[in-house]
């Protein structure tokens, strides 16, 4: 088996007294797409900068294709980097921006021309080669930035919040574009930093969830979504309600029985084994909560927000536990302030309280 495209071994980064990244171990396989997902200040961008060589790890090693590059400056690493504000060279035309890396490598002029045309066509910007960056829209600048990074045929493409500066519609379009590019470049590994779970779910094969300079959890996308091991992952990836429950029975492997506000459910202990009598958190995604006029667990309807595609309901279970629900229609529901019935499906992930911070 060949060495992974990127490997971080115990990488810590300090800025003065602040620890920006703590003992990160992570691998990205050849051609794999890994999303680094977390809120701001979680260390995800710092991890990316450590891979690119923009910051120097305090401890630990960075390996690219099995080669230790910890002491190599960025220009000797051969990675493609796309940053949030694109960082196009404002004094160069589009074609010169894209050609920059090729010329730095002293590629013959003809080949530079060919490669520039090739990557600009790949991102649909072939007609803009004579423009200056300031003459382009945000989405177009982003395409050029991606073309510039891809021109040098990097084995790894690092993307730092590449869509966060775009408006919602453009973000969707660029996300589709990135997915298409992934299909065209099956051998290029992708490390994608984002705070948007939607982008991470759409693009990544695996997701690494980060918080407070630490890696919380890493795993295949669907596993992390459906079987989160920590409270943080459950709430950050899919915005699950974390309901405090009591474990009634736990047969070891297989579903456990938990109790919440007098009702009992079956739950999947995804965060490791739980013992009967313990407190745990049940991760319930808002769209899995059913709200009716009666029956189920008694609750009070606190607020209704129309979200276009559906409605978001803020509820409070008897006993004071807040609960968010997403429903497609509020027809037949009583007005805000009234009492409703709530039901939660069996099989929701059960995580131990406090795990992962």
């Amino acid at each position: 088996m060949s060495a992974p495209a990127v490997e971080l071994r115990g990488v810590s980064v300090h800025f003065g007294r602040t620890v920006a990244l703590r003992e990160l171990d992570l691998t990205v396989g050849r051609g794999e797409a890994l999303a680094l997902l977390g809120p701001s200040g979680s260390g995800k961008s710092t991890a990316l900068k450590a891979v690119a060589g923009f910051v120097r790890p305090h401890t630990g090693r960075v390996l690219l294709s099995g080669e230790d590059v910890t002491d190599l400056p960025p220009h000797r690493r051969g990675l493609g980097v796309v940053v949030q504000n694109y960082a196009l060279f404002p004094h160069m035309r589009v074609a010169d921006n894209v050609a920059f890396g090729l010329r730095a490598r002293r590629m013959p002029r003809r080949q530079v021309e060919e490669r520039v045309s090739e990557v600009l066509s790949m991102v649909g910007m072939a007609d803009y080669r004579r423009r200056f960056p300031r003459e382009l829209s945000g989405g177009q600048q982003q395409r050029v930035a991606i073309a510039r990074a891809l021109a040098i045929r990097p084995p790894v493409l690092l993307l730092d919040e590449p869509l966060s500066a775009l408006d919602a519609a453009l973000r969707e379009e660029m996300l589709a574009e990135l997915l298409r590019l992934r299909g065209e470049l099956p051998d290029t590994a992708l490390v994608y930093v984002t705070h948007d779970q939607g982008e991470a779910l759409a693009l990544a094969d695996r997701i690494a969830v980060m918080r407070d300079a630490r890696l919380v959890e890493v795993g295949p996308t669907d596993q992390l979504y459906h079987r989160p091991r920590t409270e943080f992952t459950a709430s950050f990836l899919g915005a699950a309600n974390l309901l405090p429950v009591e474990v009634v029975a736990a047969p070891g492997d297989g579903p456990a029985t938990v109790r919440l506000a007098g009702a009992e459910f079956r739950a999947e202990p995804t965060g490791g084994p739980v013992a009967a009598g313990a407190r745990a958190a049940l991760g319930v995604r808002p769209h899995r909560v059913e709200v009716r006029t009666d029956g189920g667990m008694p609750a009070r309807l606190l607020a209704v927000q129309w979200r276009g595609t559906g409605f978001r309901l803020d509820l409070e279970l008897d006993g004071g536990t807040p609960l968010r629900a997403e429903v497609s229609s509020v027809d037949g529901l009583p007005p805000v302030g009234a009492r409703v019935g709530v039901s939660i499906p069996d099989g929701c992930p059960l995580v131990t309280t406090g795990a992962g911070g």
Partner: protein
Amino acid sequence: MLFRTRRSRFLLWLAFGVLFGVVIAAPLAMVGLAAVAGTWNGVLPAEYTARHLADAASGDALASALVSVQTGLVASLAAVLVGTWAALAVRSAPRPVRRVVDTLLHLPVAVPSVVVGLSLLVAFSQPPLALNGTRWIVLVAHLVIVLPFGYGVVSGALDRADPALAEVAASLGAPPALVLWRVRLPLLAPALSASASLSLALSMGEVGATVMLYPPDWRTLPVSVFAQADRGEVFLAAASTVVLLGLTLVGLLTLGLAKGRAAER
């Protein structure tokens, strides 16, 4: 906007006009008139002549003007080079070092030019660096006086520059020298031009340190003006001042054109 009505705006412009007229325009106009005055006993000169201007553009005065131009060019070029180098260098230094160097580089602003002159005189009058009595001590003095401004302008521009540009350039395979040459310096071009303009203007007008240091063969125009006025040749001094103003203006316009072209890109 505080001044909304026509009347209050008129009063504002009037106040500005009076201030500007008395403080800046009137003295300059007087110097301009004095430069072409034959005799001047009333409010305005009684007769006009080009003699003083001709004198100011020939002989000793001309030599003095050429000295000033050379001093200004050398000092501003050196200030831009050293200032830019220092501004770039301190950014890769640890924070405490950066703060100390930054303070040191700004120190000459706080020191009167006479003190700069005296300290150079004391420092460079003995071997091994006996610069006293040579033109070099004047050039050194000018560099010391304009360097903080040359450095400050470039440093300010670097503070506003996006570090991601240099990082991305490096990631694309460009070694530091190439990043500097192809990305960082071109983006600094407007600041370099502004830095040169400011340094040139300051150097062309410097008199406090120069008057203590200049050797007979390297007398700058402001020192000559000072000497002429001291001898009572006020009209010649005024004419020399007009020449000085003209030369400085030409230099600044040239640099301004370069700046405009750099900013266009």
